[in-house]
């Protein structure tokens, strides 16, 4: 075996290795890099970022109090008089003489709040149900399997009830309010999260490393908590991003049906959109501002979610 050092060879190897490392890196970093390259993800992130900034800073940026009917005497909805955009009110006035621009800005916060809280409700409750089912089914023996079967059939059936009807009856039970919308939309998402997490956990449970851990005698509880669960959360988190978009839209639908957030103290896009349906012919702008707000925001979350899903999905990755 020759041991002669060939400097040039070392240099060439080094160059070649670093070139390759630039292309690979860890799985997570790869996903992230792919995300950064994806126009979908970038667009989504920019929209979501802007939205969050507006939501956080809302009351600071807004030129006026969004609930003050300052120009109340200039609007006559029964005579179709809705002052449109002008110097002092960039987006014009709403049907009660409030500054539409301020309402849009401040409304972002409530809209975000509805989306986030509703998603969290669905996520947490769904994750608990799905997680328990999967854990019981995998490691709980005969009884565990029965528990899993019962839980999952219930989830199946819950999925059969149209989401909106579920939300509708939750809303009817709790009375119309902002928290009703959050709970109603959140509850409707539970079965989806439950199924997703269970599926994801089952896939992990049958993976080689878990089988290996089992055969090495690692306690089952620990396998679930420290191996299966963390590795199963990816798709669920992606789903959460997508659900955020759905939640914002569903909230608007509930408002349209008269069950939305009725508190005039806090404008919210869904309620604004639903309210404005009455003036669609006379003052379409009142519907279009919140509609565009909702659509763009929902699109932002969806783009981000879809891009994340694609970057995490090994099946799609293989195609590249």
């Amino acid at each position, binding site marked *: 075996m020759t041991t002669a050092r060939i400097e040039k060879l070392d240099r060439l190897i080094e160059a070649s290795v670093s070139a390759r490392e630039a292309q690979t890196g860890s799985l997570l970093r790869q996903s992230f890099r792919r995300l950064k390259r994806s126009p979908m993800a970038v667009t989504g992130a920019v929209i979501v970022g802007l939205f969050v900034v507006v939501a956080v800073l809302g009351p600071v940026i807004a030129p006026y109090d969004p*609930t*003050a*009917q300052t120009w*109340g*005497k200039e*609007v*006559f*909805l*029964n*005579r*179709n*008089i809705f002052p449109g955009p002008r110097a002092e009110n960039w987006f014009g006035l709403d*049907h*009660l003489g409030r500054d539409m621009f301020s309402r849009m800005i401040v409304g972002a916060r409530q809209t975000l709040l509805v989306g986030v809280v509703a998603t969290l409700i669905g996520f947490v409750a769904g994750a608990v149900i799905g997680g328990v089912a999967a854990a019981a089914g995998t490691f709980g023996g005969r009884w565990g399997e029965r528990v899993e079967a019962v839980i999952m059939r219930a989830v199946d059936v819950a999925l059969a009830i149209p989401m909106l009807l579920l939300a509708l009856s939750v809303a*009817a039970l709790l*009375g*119309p*309010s902002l928290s009703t919308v959050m709970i109603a939309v959140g509850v409707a998402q539970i079965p989806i999260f439950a199924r997703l997490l269970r599926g994801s956990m089952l896939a992990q449970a049958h993976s080689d490393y878990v089988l290996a851990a089992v055969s090495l005698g690692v306690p089952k509880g620990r396998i679930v908590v420290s191996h299966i669960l963390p590795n199963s959360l990816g798709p669920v988190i992606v789903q959460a991003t997508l659900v955020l978009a759905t939640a914002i839209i569903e909230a608007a639908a509930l408002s*349209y*049906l*008269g*069950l939305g957030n*009725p*508190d*005039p*103290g806090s404008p919210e896009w869904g309620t604004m959109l639903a*309210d404005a*349906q*009455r*003036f*669609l*012919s*006379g*003052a379409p702008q009142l519907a279009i501002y919140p509609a565009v707000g909702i659509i763009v925001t929902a699109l932002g979350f969806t783009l981000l979610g879809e891009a994340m899903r694609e970057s995490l999905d090994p099946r799609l990755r293989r195609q590249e």
Partner: protein
Amino acid sequence: MRMSPTPVRRALAAAAGAAMAVGLFTACGSDGDTGGDADTAEDFDFSCPERTDGEPQIDEAANESQPFVFGTPGDPTSLDPILASDGETFRVNRQVFDTLLDADCTDTVPGLAESFEQNPEGTEWTFHLREGVTFHDGTPLDGAAVCKNFDRWANFKGGFQSPNFTYYYSSVFGGFAENDPAMGIETESIFEGCTADGLDATIKISHYTSSFPGAFTLESLSIISPASIDAVADVTIPAADSPLPEYTQTVGTLAGTGPYMLQDWNHSEQEVTLVRNDNYWGEPAKVKTLIFKTISDETARRQALEAGDIHGYDLAAPADAQALLDGGYQVPIRGVFNLLYLAYTQGHTPLENHTVREALSYAVDRQRIVDSVLPAGGMVATQFMPPSLPGYSDDVATYDYDTEKAKELLAEAGAEDLTLTFCYPTDVTRPYMPAPKDIFDIIASDLEAAGVTVEARPITWVEYIPTTRSGECPLYLLGWTGDFADPYNFLGTWFAAPSTEWGFDNAEVFDSIAAANTEPDEATREELWKTANEAVMEELPGLPISSSPPSIAFAPNVYPPDVSPLTREDFSQVSFTTGS
């Protein structure tokens, strides 16, 4: 009248129903036709103004060949008039069946009876029927036919007695010959019998009720053919939650005397088709085929009209009326016959303090609500009844919008940092309250301006009535569309006795109402009602906000019927027109 509350989007099914007015043939309002398109609410007279649209250029060919399609906010429920209490059913049945008396504007006028007389005690009512009236099945109308109807109603059994079917009959007559304990009717029937003599029918009751004779204009008490009564004699309704009998859902069983005959009720298309009765005793209908078709969404109704899919619709949203007028559509304005109020539930400190109630009343800019939110033709209310009723007083205490005064009064009462919960319904529109949330928003904002902190409490309609009735809401919005031109139908139902919904105990108010209600002399009674109104506004149990008419709209090429404060439009007057 029962109104189906409608989800906000669907507007209101029964709105229409509106009210039954009564009075002798002389009573209220101005005579003359309703209608006329007013451009704004300003300078509008509450009563029924002259029509200004002139003689129609009737398009005979279109009347014969084209159906007139009217968009209704909801489905009717029953083709047997007695079994319904909602406006949509009334609207259809009104074209097919006639009542003994009729209403023009808010005046009571002859119907099937050309005239009537009562004994001094008001316990015997004799109706002189028109000659030559025949039912659609060919049976002639006579006193016996009328009595057969009253006897049928009085002897209803089982589920027929349930208030969700025969609410109006039991409200007027107290009960039935044999009250079914399962139906919960506990009051005795005041009906003592009906005797017929040729074209005369005499109805006897055990004691006078202020509902008479107005009740005889109620669509529920329409007269149907005796042959039809025989045909359904064996029909039973076992329980309150039993389905309505089949004959009420399909055409062909019941015959009336009206200008139209039922041709078809297509439930899945939500469409009722009527065809002209060529043997009608009065002026025959102009349009041959009349279709009532349900469009529950108010925006959809407007769009259907604009697209030419329908030729008219009821309950136009206030926001649409101007756009329609601008587009050349007709939006004749009805007279007002309802009342919206803001209640101050005493028992919630400090609402029992008169100064606080006064302060709140001064704080509210009611004119803005009327000007900007309510349909054209609306007006600020000064007392708890519409102006078309006898007993309306011009001397009640008024509380004109004055935020400063409100603040002063609140300071005086030591209630500067007042916080009040304010309830409003979320999923309905009512004829007197087309957009509850807008009205709430405006009032809340006015109250905030006077320094009151308002906590919004939105409640769904099915919960709203019991909640406000129980006295849970310090402030709440509610209203009423009159059944009868009797002031008691407004004042009496609210202020006749102490109640949790108002929470006050003021003998002066209760006594003044009782005095007016039992006074037999008409002129004295009117003065007593005025006194009662003044007493109520002195007590200030709540703030009357407005009276406003629900809007109805028609296509440009249509001659609309006279519009009615009671929403009793007679579609036989409708015609297609040539030109615009």
